[in-house]
């Protein structure tokens, strides 16, 4: 059964992806010279997970809606779409970053690799419009394992 489409502002999604990439890159590169910057990874995980369950707490999306959009820095791009797959993708990114956070101290290579993977997938979505998390959502939904 299809779910009725709503208008989703894809600019908000793009800002979210940019925020994820930038934060992970700062943590990844910065931690080479200043290790405490690794704390950005668990903070980003919290921000993504909070934003998934309470959209009003989505840090980068709120930055877009409250600052960038009203000032005309980023133009809105409403598209008839479902928000659920994008939320799922964001939540998946949050989960990956949460797992990465657990590994950051005992096994930094694993923690950093997982974080970087999230940034790579966010970049693929930002640059090519291919949302791996959304694909996983669609597959799970098709198999009846998830319901929007």
């Amino acid at each position, binding site marked *: 059964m299809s779910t009725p*489409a709503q208008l989703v502002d894809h600019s908000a999604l793009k800002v979210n992806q940019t925020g994820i990439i930038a934060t992970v890159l700062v943590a990844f590169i910065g931690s080479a010279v200043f290790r405490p910057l690794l704390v950005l990874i668990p903070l980003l995980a919290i921000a993504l997970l909070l934003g998934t369950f309470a959209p009003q707490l989505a840090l980068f999306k709120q930055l877009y809606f409250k600052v960038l959009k009203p000032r005309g820095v980023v133009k809105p791009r409403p598209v008839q779409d*479902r928000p659920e797959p994008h939320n799922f993708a964001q939540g998946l990114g949050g989960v990956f970053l949460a797992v990465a956070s657990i590994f950051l101290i005992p096994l*930094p*290579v694993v923690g950093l690799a997982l974080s970087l993977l999230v940034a*790579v997938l966010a970049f693929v979505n930002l640059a090519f419009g291919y949302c791996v998390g959304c694909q996983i959502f669609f597959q799970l939904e098709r198999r009846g394992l998830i319901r929007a």
Partner: protein
Amino acid sequence: MSAQLWALAVVGAIVLAAAGLETFRSRRARRRVFAASPTGPAGHLPMNGEEPYILYFTGDSCTVCRTHQEPALARQFHVYTLPTTVVMGADGNALHINYGYAPAPKLERQLADARGAGLRSAATA
């Protein structure tokens, strides 16, 4: 710094493996589609005579790209990704297959290419 380099190497390997796998899958699907007859197991594919056309596959969960479902055709074209668009030549042969969202300029380019191919074959006939 070594942890960063190792992590970069691990992610690089994962990305390369994924890209390689996708290329292999995509090429295999294309080979199968291009080898398939226009009147394959899915039955008849319309032959438009003059104009190339697009086959557009979607599903219930893909609300961005909703259209009619053609499961038999989807099987014939090995559609595992939604949306998938196939640009068909006027003779009913698949000329371009786009797995994933294909933006309008790309489709227009492929349609123009299909028209060009049609004109070339008409000129040599």
